[in-house]
């Protein structure tokens, strides 16, 4: 997969991609260590909040209500941003957004543009589109530098280079950054190397692109949450700033920030507050960029909105708590999901942004439905419920080909058996007899066909000689 193509186009089914990832011992160790560290931190900063569940309820209620009247809030946002001196653009899809951003920069004869880490720009493949027009995007978030300079793809929405350890990062920096011949693998040293390389860029490149964590319809304010200060650099030094936001990022009122300013940092970086939050409205004389563009991106979001059972998907504030808690993500890492959006949120969001049939159809099944993600989600997205809903859509879409679909045939046959107690009792007998050739020492050690996945590493309990109902009937007599 090209690192410059749109980040949500899935090219490989999850089971196969996961199989490769599971073999990578370094990745397993890096991700396992990282997720367990951040889980413990999150638990601690959430536990100290007596009103955490009330905050989650409020976060959910604000998002739900906003999405149910999204047209109204977007129009209000457009009006307030325009009144504050900004320009608002609407983009139907990634291609249109990329073209708009490219046109604005080309109009200024820009050759380089600074970038704040943005999932939305990754989703639409903005970097590749700009490069193709001769405009070089310069990632400024430390992890994005690691990913960009490593010609790599992100594996986590918060810490994109979570799959890399210090030794690997040192190699990348030595190869790609200036003045690094004496670089050690100390995180302090690595961060300093990035600081030196980027400081000169911040002071010389007058164009910047950002995403948006929130945009307030009432005041036209856009908010960026960050840790390193590269965000503040990009938001205050350049002459021209372009922010790209998914249409679901709007919130109605400034007061609503009181919920999200608490929910996001604790769920995301597991801190009481992340180091820097910037809020700005349009342009301001003598302060920050002279030109501000806000691009409102649909790119499939209105389709998600139209599917009522899945609508809550758009509540997501991209905190990554669901990735960090997920037992599947912990073992496969992010790249197995083949998308900008990995982990549980990716398993519901990505398939809704890929036209079926697609390898993305495998993502709703990439979960044991353990429910840990729902428990930690700060905006209460019932991810397991949406996974089941999306599985239903995949099954229904395959419906026309049922005759060729082994699983559907088995499911239909089993439904018929369960509908009829007499068939059910017969099936028990048939299965009890049918399994006999497979039993060794009281366990089933190897099965044919699609069931072989079970017995590859696990014995299977054989069907009992006497079912419970047979015992009950015998006892009654």
């Amino acid at each position, binding site marked *: 997969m090209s690192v410059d193509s749109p980040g949500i186009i899935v090219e490989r089914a999850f089971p196969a991609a996961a199989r490769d990832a599971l073999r990578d011992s370094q990745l397993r160790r890096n991700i396992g260590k990282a997720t367990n560290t951040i889980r413990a931190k999150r638990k601690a900063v959430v536990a100290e909040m007596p009103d955490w569940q009330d905050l989650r309820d409020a976060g959910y209620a604000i998002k739900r209500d906003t999405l149910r009247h999204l047209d109204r809030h977007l129009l209000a946002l457009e009006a307030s941003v325009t009144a504050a001196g900004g320009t608002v653009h609407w983009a139907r899809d990634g291609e249109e957004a990329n073209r708009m951003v490219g046109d604005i920069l080309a109009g200024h004869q820009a050759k380089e543009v600074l970038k704040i880490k943005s999932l939305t720009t990754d989703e639409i493949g903005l970097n590749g589109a700009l490069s193709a027009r001769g405009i070089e995007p310069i990632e400024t978030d430390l992890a994005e530098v690691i990913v960009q300079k490593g010609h790599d793809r992100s594996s986590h929405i918060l810490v994109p280079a979570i799959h890399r350890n210090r030794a690997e990062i040192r190699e990348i920096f030595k190869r790609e950054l200036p003045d690094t011949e004496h670089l050690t693998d100390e995180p302090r040293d690595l961060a300093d190397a990035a600081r030196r390389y980027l400081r000169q860029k911040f002071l010389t490149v007058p164009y910047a692109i950002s995403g948006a964590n929130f945009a307030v319809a009432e005041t036209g304010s856009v908010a960026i949450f960050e840790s390193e200060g590269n965000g503040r650099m990009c938001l205050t030094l350049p002459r021209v700033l372009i922010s790209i936001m998914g249409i679901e990022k709007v919130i109605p009122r400034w007061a609503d920030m009181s919920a999200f300013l608490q929910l996001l940092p604790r769920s995301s970086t597991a801190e009481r507050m992340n180091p820097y939050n910037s809020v700005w409205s349009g342009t301001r004389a003598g302060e920050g960029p002279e030109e501000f563009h806000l691009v409102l991106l649909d790119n499939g979001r209105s389709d998600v909105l139209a599917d009522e059972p899945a609508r809550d998907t758009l509540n997501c504030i991209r905190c990554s708590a669901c990735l960090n808690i997920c037992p599947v993500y912990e073992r496969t890492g992010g790249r197995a999901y083949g998308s900008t959006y990995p982990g549980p949120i990716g398993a519901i969001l990505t398939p809704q942004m890929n036209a079926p049939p697609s390898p993305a159809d495998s993502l709703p099944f990439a979960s044991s439905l353990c429910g840990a993600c729902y428990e930690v989600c700060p905006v209460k997205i019932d991810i397991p419920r949406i996974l089941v809903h999306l599985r239903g859509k995949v099954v229904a879409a395959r419906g026309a080909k049922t005759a060729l679909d082994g699983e559907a045939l088995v*499911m239909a046959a089993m439904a018929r058996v369960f509908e009829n107690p007499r068939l059910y009792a017969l099936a028990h007998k048939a299965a009890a007899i049918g399994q006999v050739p497979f039993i060794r020492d009281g366990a089933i050690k190897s099965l044919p066909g699609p069931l072989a996945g079970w017995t590859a590493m696990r014995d299977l309990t054989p069907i009992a000689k006497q079912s*419970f109902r047979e015992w009950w009937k015998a006892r009654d007599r």
Partner: protein
Amino acid sequence: MKVSLFISCFNDMLFPQTGRAVVSVLERLGHEVAFPLEQTCCGQMHNNSGYGPEATALMRRFADVFADAETIVCPSSSCVVTVRVAYPRLAAATGDQQLIARIADLGARTFEFAEFLVKKLGIEDVGAYYPHRVTYHSTCNSLRGLGLGDAATRLLSHVRGLDFVELPRADECCGFGGTFAIKNADTSIAMLTDKLAAIRGTQAEICTAVDNSCLMHIAGGLSRERSGRRTLHLAEILASVEGGVAA
């Protein structure tokens, strides 16, 4: 009290001894157990795999079979979660108001076995004796779907002779997840491997839980690695008395 037992298709065919243990404990406590023979499957597998229409038909069937049951008890938390959480959604999707009301009522009458003992009857000591070292795995459905809390470990704490040892990371999924174990066998096995290591670390002979589906997954791994440890449903521990199992 008259208790209607929903055994679940899984326990009926693979783990009949769990059902016998439930009957034995309930009768020991002085309750009358009924077993409607028309029962088959709650539809969990169909629902979770995306076969909503089939699951809806099985839901209607379940509601008919247990229409007159005052209290339904089931030794499988994932089936109880299906009845309580999935059924209302399936019912809502039909738009049939009468069905929606029936299903809401059904959910209020359905209990997981340990939950029934501790939360409904208020009993923690069922007079069991089980002189073994035991660890407890909190299955995802009981922990997060049901909100079982510490009901199971309270029951275990009153079992005479039992040496209880806490399982590290007990709240993490074992990797079963129904068809997940087959569709994503590699990831499932990676999850199971870590669960088995945690169980080994406790030095327990027995790993217990309130779901035989997860226990079958764990047992499949323990058996394959000849670990000398095994799994046992909580009901079977609670049914044990001095001089052997009563059932």
